[in-house]
């Protein structure tokens, strides 16, 4: 075993601030949706919009970071070992087997993670961001460019709500999956301090995509 830096400082900052923003926006967002009452509609809207702008800023930084550090390569989807990974979560881990795909500095996401995170990045987040921006600015857009009509609000809200449900479902599964590491807290610790114990012999050319 050796201790390596898997998550760099920016990644950790990005991850945790994004986590805080997403959870906060889910709480305020579903209040706006009318699911419950917590802050009151006015405060909820105001908070949701402020958090939205912060998240947009964070996303801009994260996109920049991913492209300048080649971090985006971690999300290139692969079908290799994907069945093995699914099998591990379904059966293997109950039998005490170890992860079929070991984590390395060069490939820190397993094939299933790659797929799910890529989906999050190119489907769920864009749905939320685009519909969210339209939700915030449709009235101004209507006056400025006339491609959006106020009557489209229902459609905008529909997509935004659909994205929110997917995001919250992702969150539930994601939080649970952090407990399925080498030990139940090892993944969360890694995301906190950036380092993870990695079994040296498992680093091969093959896995370094």
């Amino acid at each position, binding site marked *: 075993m050796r201790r390596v830096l898997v998550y760099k400082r920016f990644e950790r900052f990005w991850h945790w601030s994004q986590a805080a923003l997403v959870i906060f926006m889910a709480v305020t967002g579903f209040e706006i949706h009318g699911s419950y009452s917590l802050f009151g*509609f006015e405060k909820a809207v105001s908070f949701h919009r402020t958090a939205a702008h912060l998240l947009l800023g964070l996303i801009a930084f994260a996109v920049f970071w991913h492209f300048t550090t080649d971090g985006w390569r971690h999300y290139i989807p692969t079908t290799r070992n994907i069945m093995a990974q699914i099998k591990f979560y379904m059966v293997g881990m109950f039998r005490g087997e170890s992860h079929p795909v070991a984590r390395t500095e060069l490939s820190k996401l397993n094939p299933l993670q790659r797929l799910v995170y890529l989906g999050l990045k190119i489907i769920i987040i864009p749905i939320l961001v685009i519909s969210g921006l339209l939700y915030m600015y449709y009235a101004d857009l209507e006056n400025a460019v006339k491609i959006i009509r106020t009557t489209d609000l229902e459609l905008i809200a529909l997509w935004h709500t659909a994205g929110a449900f997917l995001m919250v479902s992702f969150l539930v599964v994601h939080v649970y999956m952090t407990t399925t590491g080498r030990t139940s807290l090892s993944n969360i610790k890694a995301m906190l301090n950036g380092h993870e114990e990695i079994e040296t012999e498992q680093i091969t050319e093959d896995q370094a995509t």
Partner: protein
Amino acid sequence: MNKNLVITTVSVAAVLTLIVLLHKEETYNVHLEKLKQEYAIKPTPSVDHSKLALLRQDFETPQDVTRACIFCHTERHKEIMGSSHWNWERTGYIEGRGLATIGKKNIINNFCIGAGANEQACAKCHIGFGMTNDRFDFSNAANVDCMVCHDNSEEYLKGSSMAGYPDRSVNLRNVALSVGSPRKSNCGACHFYGGGGNNVKHGDLEESLLACDREVDVHMAANGMDMSCVTCHSAENHVMKGRLYSVSADNKNRAFCEDCHTDSPHLDNLLNRHTRVACQTCHIPHYAKVNATKMEWKWSEAGRLEHGKPYSIENEDGKHIYLSTKGEFLWEKNVIPDYIWFNGTADHYLLGDTVGDFPVVINPLNGSYDDKRSQIIPVKVHRGDQIYDRQTRMLVQPKLFGTQKGDSAFWQDFDWALASEAGMNRVGLPFSGDYKFVETEMYWPVNHMVSPKDKSLDCAHCHVREGGRLAGLGGFYLPGRDRNSTVDMVGKLILYLSIIAVLIHTIIRIVVLVRERKSVVAQDDSERSP
């Protein structure tokens, strides 16, 4: 590890702090303060009429006063004689009718029904003298009543059923010497008492506004800006700004809050973007705040007599809830308005129109969400029933007022057939004699009794799933109230399935763990060690 935990906690805390910091609280509204400053300065009249020798005479007739006015204001009477206050009608475009002339001469309402055949009584609110019947001379300048609007002595009073002539008690000399810009009491003399009593018709215009506090009306409050009616309803050449849709039809020369407050009055731009909601909707949470207003009027109950004589029943506030002459009433105080889409145009039931749908909407206000000019406005809906001819399918204009028994007036003879025959005859329409009472509705936009800022509606009064103020207003998506049930159902299903899957997985892991511990503890330890 601890250092890293601190970094994480700090970044989460920083984000949440940023949210709170960037979330702006309202500060001082400079624009509003400037407006207050502007309107705190009351205009000084350029002429003190009490110094004019011409007016220091004992006037024989009210027409003599008018002639004295015209002596100096040589052309003003022409403006008045072109106004709807004088003509009781206005010509304009009405959707579905084209150019039409409408006014008190040819519309009816569901209060006292209509002026036709009842001029002698109704002319108490006409700015002229001597309208005893439908042959009033609208071209005689001497009959213009300048005093009813310009009296500043508070002494002027039009007589009851005197065809618009002043009460005999009025000292015309005092009135003439006092004239000036119209006060609230001048406008209120008619506009507060329409329908036969204080606040009967409007609900938001009544005598309490003469001396109210800011809770009742921020603009007219005696301890506030103390604005008069004509501050907003300014007049150019005696044509008053503002439209009341119980008699108006077109979207012209209206008075808007935005005229002073601009179309972005709030510091919070999110509120300014509620462009499809009229200011009044949030800022007039209730109307009839001080004195009750009539909500229902059932003419069908009129005519019951006790020992052959008309009688009345009053409620604890001293308001009539029954009158043999007029029927049964329902009064309400602190009323929550109804809300509708309105684009500034209205249709009206005109005398002679036939109807098929009940209840009959006497003045349908046009508008819908899809019509971009429409806004959500608060309205008072006045419901009632009134007389209708089954054969001609027309609402009936009865003759109500009469000076003596036997001239077929309902208020004298209590005979609907006779009164209807006489009334319809006067307005030149047929009456078959086969009558019944049908339900009618009338819409009164609520524009006054603006509450202080902190009493206006909150977001959640409308943006709430159930029981909101706009619960009944359909055809558009209202965040917080509306949702797509399919998206919600499928979304919840995915969320619940995720939770269930996670729970099942957890249970299996626990079961496996417990079983392993039980079986071979030592072996288990050796397996886990590297």
